[in-house]
């Protein structure tokens, strides 16, 4: 262990002739190259992980809700929490808030503070991805609780993804490549989620969803094409290829 082949052979001179070819084979094995990881396969894996994680969190949230089966009690508890322990505890409690909840503006505010405090561009870009994923989860939760389709969340979800891509332009090549693969995975996740929502949506909601789903489909194709091809066109801020799907962010 930890010895070079020559050291091992010197230590066991009687059997050196027998083990020399085995050590040579072992050295060859250690130098065997690994296959190149294809970006599309990594994106597929990340997308499946995102879907699985979102599903796990939804089930966990539903279990929590059963502890307080009456919504009035939930709101009373939230108000008492704000009054008795302010500031930091309030922000922590707002993490699970949805649009329309008392603490939702605090949740959005804390996200903006985190974004403002992030110094590195890479961290800002990654935060945008996190916030975009959070909007997707809120959208699903809201819809599953009978809250209908929230267009603001849909728009916010797309806008955060665009902000992540915009932030990636200024990054060095290696970081930019990695971030782009995450943006691609995010686009896939958003598309998948909207497709699932469409199955459960009312006819009116399907009509509203179509615009956003079309944008997600275009973005997925665009990201696949760019990542599968050679380097950055993504680096050109005014490239005409970036017009279209990334600029179509409904307000």
């Amino acid at each position, binding site marked *: *262990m930890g010895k070079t082949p020559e050291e091992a052979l010197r230590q066991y001179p009687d059997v050196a002739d027998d083990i020399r*070819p*085995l050590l040579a084979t*072992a050295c*060859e094995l250690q130098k065997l*190259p*690994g296959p*190149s990881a294809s970006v599309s396969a990594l994106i597929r894996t*990340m997308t499946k992980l995102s879907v699985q994680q979102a599903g*796990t969190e939804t089930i966990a949230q539903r279990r929590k809700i059963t502890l307080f089966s009456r919504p009035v009690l939930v709101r009373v508890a939230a108000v008492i929490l704000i009054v008795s322990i302010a500031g930091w505890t309030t922000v922590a409690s707002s993490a699970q808030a949805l649009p329309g909840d008392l603490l939702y503006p605090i949740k959005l505010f804390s996200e903006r503070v985190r974004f403002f405090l992030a110094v590195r561009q890479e961290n800002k870009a990654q935060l945008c991805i996190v916030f975009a994923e959070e909007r997707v989860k809120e959208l699903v939760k809201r819809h599953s609780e009978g809250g209908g389709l929230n267009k603001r969340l849909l728009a916010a979800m797309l806008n955060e993804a665009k902000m992540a891509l915009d932030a990636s332009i200024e990054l060095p090549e290696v970081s930019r490549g990695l971030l782009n693969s995450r943006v691609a995975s995010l686009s896939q996740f958003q598309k998948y989620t909207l497709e699932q929502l469409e199955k459960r949506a009312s006819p009116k909601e399907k009509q509203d969803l179509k615009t956003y789903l079309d944008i997600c489909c275009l973005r997925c194709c665009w990201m696949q094409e760019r990542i599968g091809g050679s380097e950055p066109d993504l680096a050109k801020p005014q490239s005409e290829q970036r017009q279209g799907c990334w600029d179509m962010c409904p307000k």
Partner: protein
Amino acid sequence: MDELDVDSLLKKVRKGDAEALAVLCEYFYPQVLKYMYYRADAASAEDLTGEVFLRVLRHIGEQSGSFIAWLYRIAANVVTDYARTGKIRQKGQTNKQLTKSTVDSKNPADAVGRHIDIYNAIVRLTDDQRELITLKFIQGLSNADVAEITGRSEGAIRGLQFRALSALRFILSGEEKAHEH
């Protein structure tokens, strides 16, 4: 890549931190892919690697001890389940992905040829031997980790590695003689 604080990442993943999960996946993906390539099947390595990380996420709450050993145990189980489907292919894998990795070699054609010979020889080992060769020599894991992954003692691992290397050497010698003729 800088050394990863795996314990800290695992804590975050257990709390549902998507970013931590992405970092963990991106860091270990190439290692698991390489394991799948040599242990299972070149054609299905990417799909099997994805399945490993899905199972990691599913069972992350049960993880304890060495994360590396736990990760490779999951990978070994994925290979076992895949082998039951009878889809693991034998000799004659395409090695386009390996070809790209050897482009910096002084003599790329010979290097690629040698890698193909070694790959085809590994495929002809017994299941236990192939597992040990992949974990110990190709992935570079310690005897302690290999013992934990395979459920054997370290002494048994040392014995098995001698037999596996001897078997591999024997097969490769036959390949070399075949090339000479």
